[in-house]
């Protein structure tokens, strides 16, 4: 574990019941960089990224071995509060999942549950988050409308804003564009590139062009193993492993 890493996984194995979903994963996530995780579906991408904010603990009958560090601290230690980790490591999901509440409440929610009561402060933070998520102009006149009336792409940016409101350090994206149209996808990608300045980002995608467009580093997963991890350019131009090459060139998956 070296100091230049934001997050880092060390010999991580993960099981759903008896079924092993991840095998000996060692992967580093560098600060203020976008790390993409690619691979065919079912290879464990979501499983891996959900370990980084201890989200998989909510799934019963799972086993995890190995270590995961955040700023050098092992977040799997029993003394670490998963709630605190999830506040520091935000997550945006595959399907936009706004709460059935209004736009304002969707974003202020994260502040409320973290015991922030000051109304002025909450309002400012909501506006700031919406602006950062490039959604402010579209919703500023209807902050009190139901979030469910937004389009899919807007909903996804709302979910990003909701994450940003609690000022996490790391943002995890699990196929954030899987259910979006190309234009919304472009917007979310631009947003990710913008957010990179302030946050450390990990993004799961099965869209290789997307990985190439937004990421600095790429890890290729196959059947629960990390086959190759390198600079994105290197992975796409000159992969070491023939399986990576096969996948990138579309020979399978």
């Amino acid at each position: 574990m070296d100091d230049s890493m934001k997050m880092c996984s060390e010999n991580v194995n993960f099981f759903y019941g008896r079924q092993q979903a991840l095998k000996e994963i060692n992967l580093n996530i560098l600060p203020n960089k976008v790390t993409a995780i690619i691979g065919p579906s079912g290879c464990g991408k979501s499983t891996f990224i959900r370990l980084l904010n201890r989200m998989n603990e909510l799934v019963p009958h799972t086993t995890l071995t190995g270590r995961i560090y955040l700023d050098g601290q092992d977040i799997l230690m029993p003394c670490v509060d998963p709630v605190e980790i999830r506040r520091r490591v935000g997550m945006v999901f595959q399907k936009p999942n706004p709460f059935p509440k209004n736009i304002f409440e969707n974003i202020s929610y994260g502040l409320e549950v973290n015991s922030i009561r000051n109304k002025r402060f909450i309002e400012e933070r909501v506006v700031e988050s919406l602006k950062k998520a490039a959604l402010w102009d579209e919703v500023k006149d209807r902050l009190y409308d139901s979030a469910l009336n937004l389009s899919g792409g807007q909903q996804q940016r709302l979910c990003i804003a909701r994450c940003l409101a609690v000022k996490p350090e790391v943002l995890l994206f699990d196929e954030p564009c899987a259910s979006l149209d190309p234009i919304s996808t472009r917007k979310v990608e631009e947003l990710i590139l913008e957010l990179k300045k302030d946050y450390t980002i990990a993004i799961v995608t099965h869209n290789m062009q997307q990985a190439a467009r937004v990421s600095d580093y790429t890890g290729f997963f196959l059947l629960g193993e990390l086959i190759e991890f390198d600079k994105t350019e290197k992975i796409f131009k000159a992969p070491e492993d023939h399986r990576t090459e096969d996948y990138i060139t579309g020979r399978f998956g």
Partner: protein
Amino acid sequence: MACLSWKRGRGPSSCRAQFLGEHMARVKEKLYEWIFAALAFSSLVFLIGIVWVLCKESLPIFSRVPLGSFLFGKFWYPTYCPPEFGILPLILSSVWVTLGAMVVCVPLGVGSALYLNEVANFRQRQILKPMIEILASIPSVVYGFFGVVLVTPFLQKVFSLPTGMTALNASFILGLMATPTVCSLAEDALSYVPRSFREASFAVGADRWQTLIKVVIPAAGSGISTAIILGMSRAIGETMTVLMVAGGAAVIPKTLLEPVRPMTAAIAAEMGEAPMGGDHYHALFAIAFILFIITFVFNIVAEIISRRFRIKLGISR
């Protein structure tokens, strides 16, 4: 289509046979469709039949007693001379007993639904769910018996009452009876809340308790209201138990510690002695009709709320 086989080189006669066969198959299919449609619509026929009978049999009383004094009359003396047909005591008895039952079954039912859905592990759920379902399958006369034998003397002693057969007793027993209904419907509502809502909440650093209070319960709120309304509808329509434990006094109750005669109990107790076709008889039908309207409205409201609930959660059904 019917003659496809002909092209494969069989004779025209076999083609005709096949055509006939397919025709028969289609007739058969239609026939099944009709049978099932008839079965499905028969419940509608019964509903209309019941409403019609209720109407027909209850209308004559209103030529004797105006609707206003029937509903709001304070005295129910159907066998006196001259008789009085004011059902306010019966309505209020029903209302008191039902509200009392709600006080019991809402915390019990919703609480156990929350426990089952949010706290219990797989094994606990596997034991508890069937037990709650068994609670629902116990005949109401058994509940009544339980009320007579256990609750009645208990209340009599604790509150030093002349009789333990009171509105409180009926409330308690009815509450127990409605608990499984409330519990299983509320549990359904909670389980309809998509996992993605919980995940979203956890992902911004909410704990389990906050997620439950601020996301899951509001999201399931209208589903839970539906559960409560249907529980009420169950309690207000229950007959045998209240007949056995409510005490049966047709006076306007001042406290829950008095004997009462809810509408269902009045009908059940008096139908046998009311001469057929007489005023009393028609009055009892009118009570039944009102009861029907009340539960009907409850069910409609529950349906409307639960439909909204599904739309809100994006469950289109």
